[in-house]
């Protein structure tokens, strides 16, 4: 994996690394990708991807308001120190 590709992935993942760290991660990812590529040996034609933790079908529920979750939102926001009028305060984007 080259530096340009690593830079693009780090941009997508929102992570800043030093050039030394980039070198190391490029090397490690190369080895890991070589290892996981062995899946290509398997014939998976007509195999439906398994998208969850079990072979069971999706279960749907009525869309209703969960009071417990509503009350929790205030508590959850307290984890952030920089709150203003119940909103997160961040530097200007524009």
């Amino acid at each position: 994996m080259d530096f340009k590709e690593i830079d693009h992935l780090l941009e997508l993942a929102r992570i800043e690394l030093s050039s030394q760290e980039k070198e190391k991660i490029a090397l490690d990812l190369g080895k890991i990708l070589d290892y996981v590529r062995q899946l290509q040996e398997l014939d998976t034609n007509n195999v439906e991807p398994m998208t969850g933790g079990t072979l069971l079908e999706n279960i749907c529920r009525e869309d209703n308001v969960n009071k417990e979750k509503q009350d929790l939102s205030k508590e959850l926001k307290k984890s952030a120190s920089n709150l203003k009028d119940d909103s997160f305060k961040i530097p200007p984007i524009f």
Partner: protein
Amino acid sequence: MIKEIHNKLINSEITATELIKGYFQTIDEKDNQIKAFLTLTKDSALEQAEKIDEKIKGGKEINVLEGIPYAIKDNMLVKGVKTTAGSKILENYTASFDATVIKKLKKQGAILLGKTNMDEFAMGSSTENSAFFATKNPHDLERVPGGSSGGSAASVASKMSVFALGSDTGGSIRQPAGFCGVVGFKPSYGTVSRYGLIAMASSLDIIGPFAENVEDAEIIFKSITGKDSMDSTSQDISVDTNKTQNIQNTVFGLPKEYFQEGLDDKIKKTIEEVIEKIKSQGATIKEVSLPSTSYALPCYYIIMPAEVSSNLARFDGIRYSSINDYPNLHDIYFKTRGEGFGEEVRRRIVLGTYVLSSGYYDAYYKKAQQVRRLIAKEFKEVFEEVDFLITPTSPTFPFKIGEKVDDPLSMYLSDIFTVGANIAGIPAINLPCGKADNLPINMQIIGPYLSDFSLLNISKTIENIIL
């Protein structure tokens, strides 16, 4: 162990306060060397113990878990208590609600002693990836306790807690349980609510117990299992639907792929001896084949990082910590995440980003999901032939601290025998079955999806055969 302590409490042979003080004394004596705990909750534990003592004095009945001291991995939320997931990025985070498992244990009166060390965000097999310190193996302080739930395993093994909870995404309960020589149970996917567990890979994560014996693991599993409205993947599992297994009419499968090269000879020999004993009790032993076994780990190292990269996006430097004084939003994201995440976590986020990115999605992520179905199907089919599978838990003995930390792939291979159960969502348990050179040897028993109670039952029988 739990029932014994319970009887002592109700017969007033010991008070809950004495019991809890005793455990904190053991922690004082041992934990400066073993380093299993990140946070202790001494004040609330003693306060709770006093209330239980008053209850017992007043002649009121107590629950079997009431007053029983336990520890939990630091990726489960306890309201008002620091929860770091072993990461610098959550160094100052205090949980604002209780995880469902904590709510359930609190209701039953179990007493939390503290939160245990772990590989950062549960990524690792040695607990060396904790941002704070490495935990040591109680059997040999120069060796790792396994991971990622290494602190929980070490706390039970060194009798610093009666039981502990961990989480298992690819082996993070069973492998450290094996390295520390205690029972570790990974339930079927969805049978324990993940609400309040800091997510690593949501389609693989499950919470389960560490205990001294299978009976205790069963008591704990019973108390934490069940459908929860806060986790839509959770479901009820009925005790009654599982037949009580009699060893004489049980068929155990030995998947030959788990006993091939790479497995330590001493581990192999000990497990073979146990299998002989099980056979002599009248059980049927059958060699079976799971041809896709070697693909489970590479499959896992695509699906897990993909889910990791998505789940860990929430740690943006804004919502879970105090915002550093960076001039723009770009810097808040990039610097907080670059400095706050450790090397292994960054590696997996970037790997996950890669396998999900445009142009690579089909070749990696979709392919892995297809392979996942093949592996799950293979397990399902083998359980039409046999009731349970017996395998080693880990191919090696606990390794030395520092031995594998610079070589991610060799660390990943520690989970080679445990990931299959996560990929397929099926239950599996680690049982200690011997020792060599003072280090524990272990085996794993794997059962079909939702066979958790019969798996625990048969494990009790096997535990007695081993003894």
